[in-house]
């Protein structure tokens, strides 16, 4: 027995130099709680990418990726604690939850440790702006999404709109960007309503909108589950016939299973699997690994996140030094991800990514378009 232990120790000692070629990515994400709708599928995509890269020998054929996972329960305080634990564990990159507020809670820890952090799917353009050099996002910004959907609405001939937003998170204020763009284009806002996240009853808001004469052409919101299905059902039950526009948060089975009520809803998201696209092959690989097709685009975005880190490590000549990775990441251009090309160069950390407009049709997705909005139409990040 002793001999065996000794032998394995020697083997381990010889194996050590190869094993040292490891990039440790710490994930402080929300696998439970209110943000699990985004972070749980993102994690599946991340693991798929990690497995793919490791099976091919690692980044650049040599550097294996290791994930160090922590669940932050959608809680900002816990995010900050988990980030500190990951810093102490010596990780090279930290992945933060899919909303700006918990991600911001970890910013102090990440910046002082000088380790690059990247949020799974937070889309508020204020995040990297407040977060500084070490904070990166991984999703089309709220202001870009709103510019795309407002432009589409105006081009469709819609001239009046109503927004429903919540001041509870940065993300749920996306309709305010929509308002700015829609008015800039010449549309008219008939009114706005505010809700609280997790609010059960939307009938008061729905009745108010239904009582408008004429009703607005468009109702835009960035509410997500469980609020969005609730709001939509209330609107339709109250007799609101307007076009409903949502955002990436409703790219979820709870939207597609709404039946007739959900039909015709249009929303912006990070990608659509056109024939022969990278996303189509991602979906196939995902199904092969997990047994069912991805439920939302967030899985592909999680895959992209690892691809971005891989590209940054390669650009840093295989360095696993956090500072080198941060420098390299800030200058990445046209990284091929599952959802398309991703560029950080020339931005403050909010990537340039494609936005897809999708319509709910027969309980599935129908591509409306993948337009690139004019730069002068995109509103500046709004500080709250």
């Amino acid at each position, binding site marked *: 027995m002793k001999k065996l232990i000794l032998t394995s120790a020697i083997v381990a000692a010889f194996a050590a130099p190869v094993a040292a070629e490891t990039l440790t990515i710490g994930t402080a994400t929300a*696998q*439970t*709680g*209110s943000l*699990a*709708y985004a972070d*749980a*599928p993102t994690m599946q995509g991340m693991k798929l990418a990690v497995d793919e890269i490791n099976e091919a020998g690692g980044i650049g054929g040599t550097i294996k990726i290791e994930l160090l996972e922590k669940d932050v329960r959608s809680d900002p305080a816990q995010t900050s604690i988990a980030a500190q634990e990951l810093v102490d564990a010596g990780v090279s990159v930290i992945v933060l939850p899919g909303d700006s507020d918990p991600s911001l809670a970890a910013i102090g820890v990440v910046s002082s440790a000088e380790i690059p952090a990247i949020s799974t799917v937070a889309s508020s353009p204020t995040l990297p702006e407040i977060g500084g050099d070490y904070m990166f996002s991984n999703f089309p910004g709220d202001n870009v999404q709103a510019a795309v959907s407002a432009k589409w609405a105006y081009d469709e001939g819609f001239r009046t709109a109503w927004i429903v937003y919540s*001041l509870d998170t940065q993300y749920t204020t996306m309709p305010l960007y929509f308002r700015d763009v829609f008015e800039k284009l010449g549309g008219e806002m008939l*009114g*706005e*309503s*505010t809700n*609280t996240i*997790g609010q*059960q*009853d*939307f*009938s*008061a*808001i729905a*009745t*108010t909108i*239904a*009582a408008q004469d004429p009703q607005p052409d468009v109702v835009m919101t960035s509410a997500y*589950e*469980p*609020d969005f*299905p*609730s709001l939509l*059902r*209330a609107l*339709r*039950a*109250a*007799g609101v016939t307007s076009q409903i526009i949502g955002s990436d948060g409703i790219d*979820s*089975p*709870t939207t*597609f*299973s*709404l*039946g*007739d*009520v959900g039909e015709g809803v249009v929303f912006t998201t990070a990608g659509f699997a056109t024939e022969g696209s990278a996303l189509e092959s991602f979906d196939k690989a995902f199904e092969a690994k997990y047994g069912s097709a991805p439920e939302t685009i967030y899985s592909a975005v999680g895959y992209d996140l690892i691809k971005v880190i891989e590209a940054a490590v390669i650009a840093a000549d295989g360095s696993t030094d956090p500072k080198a990775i941060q420098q390299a990441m800030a200058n990445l251009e046209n990284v091929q991800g599952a959802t398309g090309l991703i560029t950080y160069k020339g931005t403050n950390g909010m990537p340039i990514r494609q936005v897809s407009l999708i319509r709910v049709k027969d309980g599935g997705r129908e591509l409306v378009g993948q337009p690139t909005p004019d730069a002068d139409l995109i509103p500046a990040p709004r500080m709250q």
Partner: protein
Amino acid sequence: MDLFVQQTVNALALGGTYALLALGLAVVFSIMGLINFAHGELMTISGYTLMYCGIAGVPFVISVPLAILAAMVAAVAMERIAFRPVRGGSGATMLITSFAVAMILQVLFQNLISARSQAVMLPPLLSESLRIGNVIIGVNKIAAIVATVLMLVFLDRFMNRQKTGIAMRAAAEDFAIARLMGIRANTVIAGAFAISGLLAGVAAVLWVSQRASVDPLMGFTPVLKAFIAAILGGLGSLRGAVAGGFLLGFIEVYLAAFLPQELQEFRDPIGLGIVVLILLFRPNGMIPSRVLGSVKV
């Protein structure tokens, strides 16, 4: 005027759901002095039952009673497993136990079912609406109001005519004397939990039929609202719970409907401010329990 009528219907529907929830808390509190914060998890159990029934293709008319039954069974099991061992304990002990039950159930839902929201299939009828004159009323609003009225009538009959119901009222007034009169404590308490499970189940069906989804943390908001409504109405008083539920529903809907847009972001603080104001004038709630203060608290 039409707008006002319509918002009043909305308020009645929401208030009715709150009333059922508050009543579920009050039934148990009046007898055991326990505020069961795991009441919301009974709703989540109902919600998941609806979800699985939908996946299995069970017709909605059958899945609704199944969902309600699931909540009742869970409530009785909860009493047997978690609350009976601490029955003689202080209020704080029971309160902490109920929090523990709620958290354990949430974690089980997260790990065994899914951390994400799951869609619940609902019949299309529930998202339709009726036009009466100039007023449009959603079918699910009518269902909520009808279900609330039915439940209130049933409970009134049960509490006043049925032996178990009368025993429960006796136990609520003075448990020690009631036991001396030959009323079995276990039966009364299990009965109270079954009733609270029934109320949670009905409320859950109404709750889920609005949002068409169920998630592990779904029970948190309703139990919070029920707690506010029960305090507002008078803790331990069944009539008070109903009154508190309706009042809370009216406050929420009218504020959302008629508060100027500039003040909308302060809607929740204003609503709770009104609740505090009412409690300043009626510290024991709108319809206080007759025995509250003398035996309990």
